[in-house]
């Protein structure tokens, strides 16, 4: 008796087999790629066309025109918006990174209740940003819990004396939410890189006489760089395009670029809607371009160090 073939296409001539193999690969990738290409690449292409004046939906077709970009770049509100967007995105990324590195290093140790702590610190990762916004309002608003505690210990007399943290261009409330939500995320990434490393190289450095700071700077840090780059890139891109947190906790016009894009899009005036698409393109190009440069810089840095 002949055994059935392990691979049903194995008995075909080689050229045909290769073609069938390729066809099968394409077929299996097709549904996922179709969804992403149509929706997400299509979305960007359509936004780009609209920003150049192509909007038959609103009976506008002045394609191609740079009018909407010129309008945008000549308004002072836009440049303030750009500043706030960078400011609210970068500071929490840096501050969060430093907090996360130290937390990840501490998590490697053995300590009492470690299992419990590993549940607790991940909680912000699992819940919507809006929950963070709601908690921040409860704690940091002028009549909020922290102001009341300060009143109790006699530091302030009435709510007005409490520093304005929310609904303000300083963006402290926004950044508190980002850090609270994102430190667990970056910690998880860095901690998982650390888990894969093992203690050997650090122990070797210590045996050879490196002090803790030298061990961290020359041995641990270079090894966790992949996690740092991934974490900061994702967090920065998220903050740069985030909408609900600055929309609620920000200081009114001009707010961040995503909020201004939504407001322009929500306007009944069609021309404003096309302006919204120009803002969307600026957000995508700036964020994408910066991340490309960041990762390219990191690859060159690794190459120079001879790791790749």
């Amino acid at each position, binding site marked *: 008796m002949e055994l059935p073939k392990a691979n049903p296409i194995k008995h075909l001539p080689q050229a045909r087999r290769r073609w069938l193999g390729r066809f099968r690969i394409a077929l299996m990738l097709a549904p996922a*790629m179709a969804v992403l290409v149509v929706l997400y690449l299509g*979305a960007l292409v359509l936004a780009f066309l609209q920003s150049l004046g192509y909007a038959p939906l609103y009976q506008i077709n002045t394609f191609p025109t740079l009018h909407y970009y010129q309008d945008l770049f000549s308004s002072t509100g836009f440049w303030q918006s750009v500043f706030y967007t960078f400011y609210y995105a970068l500071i929490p990324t840096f501050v969060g990174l430093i907090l996360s590195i130290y937390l990840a290093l501490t998590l490697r140790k053995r300590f009492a209740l470690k299992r419990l702590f590993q549940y607790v610190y991940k909680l912000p990762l699992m819940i919507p940003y809006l929950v963070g916004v*709601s908690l921040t*309002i409860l704690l940091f608003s002028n009549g909020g819990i922290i102001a009341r505690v300060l009143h109790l210990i006699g530091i302030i007399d009435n709510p007005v004396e409490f520093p304005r943290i929310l609904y303000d261009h300083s963006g402290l409330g926004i950044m508190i939410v980002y850090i609270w939500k994102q430190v667990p995320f970056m910690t998880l990434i860095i901690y998982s890189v650390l888990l894969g490393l093992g203690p050997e190289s650090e122990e070797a450095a210590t045996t050879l006489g490196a002090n803790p700071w030298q061990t961290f700077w020359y041995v641990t840090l270079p090894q966790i760089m992949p996690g740092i*780059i*991934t974490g900061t890139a994702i967090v920065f891109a998220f903050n*740069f*395009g985030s909408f609900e947190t600055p929309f609620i906790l920000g200081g009114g016009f001009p707010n961040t670029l995503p909020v201004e894009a939504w407001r322009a899009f929500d306007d009944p005036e069609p021309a404003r809607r096309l302006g919204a698409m120009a803002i*969307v393109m600026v957000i995508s190009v700036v964020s*994408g371009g910066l991340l490309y440069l960041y990762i390219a810089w990191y690859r060159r840095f690794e190459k120079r160090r001879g790791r790749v």
Partner: protein
Amino acid sequence: MTIRERRFSRDGLTPFQRFYLIFFALTVLSPLIPMIIASFAFRWFWPDLLPSEWWASARHTLTQPIGWDYVFSPYSRLFTAIRNTLVIGFSVTLLCLAISLPAARVLAREKFRAKGLVEFFLLTPLIVPEVAIGLGVLLIFIQLGLAGSFVGIVLAHLIPTVPYAIRVLTSVFQNLSTDYEEQAMVLGANPLKTFWHITLPMIFPGIMAGGLFVFLVSSNVFLLTFFVGRGQVETLPTLLFTKVSSGGVLDPVTAGITLITMLPGIILLLITERFIREEVFAKGFSG
């Protein structure tokens, strides 16, 4: 052990490290206490640290529902939001897994020319700002008549979830040897039977973990639901958005809805901690 030695060794924390861990646990957990208190409050004036009148004592003296009574009444639209969140979440999870499984299998096992390009493309939704995707997708859906519909929202939720699911499932397939499947084929099982009886049971834990997280992402997404739904489809995050952007500081209803919106995340954290494959997150742009 001196502090200097402890900084190194794997056992024993320095006092600062202990403080640091306690500080983190407190920043996560302590805001929940005033939130729970706020949800049970009726009158809570400056500068009291506790409400002067509670929901439990005030609810019988009033004709209209307050606090938790209001939250669980039809007026709050909470049950509509929960139902929509669940329906959208389950649809997204099933659809997302169905299209991600074959793609992940190919990416884990086959070599082909465009593979690098496909893998790069799958990373990009992580780094393209959500607002750009949200408004762009809304443009497409307005033209297709899908704006404000369930179908539109489910499709929009696939954008953040499919790349994530493919990433998780690819690593599941990579850790799975092909031996058993080959044996089944040699013994005469067709590809479909092999998948159903051999592959699927072996990757089931991975599928569960991936599916739970896809569900969580879908139930937490605000922007895509809000933009694509055009305010016509209410989910837990959009309901909370309405409350938070209009409510007062210590509003009991906002507090109640905040606590309920946390529930999917808390439940999933409790059941999936052991599922979370930390190495899934570890693969960066460099690898």
